[in-house]
């Protein structure tokens, strides 16, 4: 049986791996089906300490991975489908393999929330995108909308103006919840126009096989209208990836893993949680990394106690 298995490859997972590896506990890390996590679809990361000039999201994940590899973290590029409690530890399974360990660190993060429309699924990759940094390129001189009002909506909108002729931000309230600096940057951008108090009721173009427009609903007057548009980017927050541990670990009402305050401990001894999967409040790369360190130290202590 292995000592520690880490599930997830964002800043929390890689930081946990560095600490576990340096404690000579030979971590095994599963990268999952979104390797690198949310930062892989982020451009400039300007608030991660240690990078005076900022760093690109994928670049940051790349160096974190390299650091974990340097201390001999074993990496499996697979998606974990189940975790079970067994005598003396846990059983972690992918579609093809089953591995056992004494402790498990869950750092499965959060994934971008979708609008939840049938047309969104149909038109995904045909004008509907979940990654502005990947797909902005395909919208040169076209008009697009970004749905949302937080930092990621601001960042994506600003990024998209490099390509799109016009970016409309559709927001269901009359104010953004984004940080001041991001709001200012957005409001100053001449290519961005905000459509307040409005939500996307439907995306049009299923028959054409590409996005041709959207159906907008005014949330105050409850009126709908059609708008011609070629691209739809949703930036309406994230959902924790906790399907894997549902029924095993205690989750809060928003489905985040509950940890004992001030620790990474879950309700099951030997299972630890770190990063966005247990953090509905801060959700920063640096807080994820910090909690990854906590999980590694908690796991190390747990294993030492078991050995006594």
């Amino acid at each position, binding site marked *: 049986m292995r000592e520690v298995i880490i599930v997830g490859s964002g800043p929390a997972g890689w930081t946990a791996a560095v600490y576990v590896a340096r404690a000579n506990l030979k971590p095994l890390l599963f*990268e999952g089906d979104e390797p690198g996590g949310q930062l892989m679809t*982020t451009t400039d990361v300007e608030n991660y300490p240690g990078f005076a000039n900022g760093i690109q999201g994928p670049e940051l994940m790349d160096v974190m991975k390299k650091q974990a590899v340097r201390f001999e973290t074993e990496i499996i590029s697979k998606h974990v489908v189940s975790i079970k409690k067994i005598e003396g530890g846990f059983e972690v399974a992918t579609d093809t393999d089953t591995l056992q360990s004494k402790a498990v660190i869950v750092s499965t993060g959060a994934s971008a929330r979708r609008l939840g429309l049938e047309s969104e699924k149909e038109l995904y*990759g045909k004008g509907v995108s979940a990654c502005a940094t990947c797909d902005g390129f395909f919208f040169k001189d076209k008009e697009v909308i970004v749905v949302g009002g937080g930092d990621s909506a601001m960042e994506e909108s600003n990024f998209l103006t490099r390509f799109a002729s016009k970016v409309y931000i559709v927001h269901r309230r009359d104010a953004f919840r984004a940080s001041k600096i991001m709001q200012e940057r957005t409001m100053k951008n001449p290519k961005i126009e905000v459509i307040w108090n409005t939500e996307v009721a439907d995306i049009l173009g299923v028959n054409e096989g590409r996005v041709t427009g959207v159906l907008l609903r005014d949330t105050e007057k409850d009126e709908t209208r059609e708008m011609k548009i070629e691209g739809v980017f949703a930036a309406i927050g994230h959902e924790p990836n906790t399907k894997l541990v549902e029924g095993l670990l205690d989750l809060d009402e928003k489905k985040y893993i509950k940890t004992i305050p001030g620790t990474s401990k879950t309700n099951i001894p030997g299972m630890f949680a770190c990063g966005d999967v247990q953090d509905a409040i801060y959700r920063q790369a640096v807080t994820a990394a910090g909690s990854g360190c906590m999980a590694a130290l908690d796991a190390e202590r747990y294993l030492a106690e078991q050995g006594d």
Partner: protein
Amino acid sequence: MEKVFTDDNFGTDVLKSAIPVLVDFWAPWCGPCRSMAPVIEEVATEAEGKMKVGKMNVDENMDTPGKYSVMSIPTFIIFKGGEVVDRFVGSMTKEEVLKKVESHY
């Protein structure tokens, strides 16, 4: 071995290929494309002889992605006898890609 497809060789290497072809539309600036690169390389090795696997850089080749309405990357399209038989978008594991690939041998 993974192939490199371009607008120029697409007709002969993909559309006229004797065996099915998986084309990975990607670009260097796309994070998920980068993390899929090693996955696709392994798929290429496992599918050797049964399916041709290769990538097309959408930054250097504009015609083919345009023709097939590629608007998100990574987009993966499987061609058989010059026709599109499967298409999927975004990150996934090697097992998931292999499942799709093997269903078109």
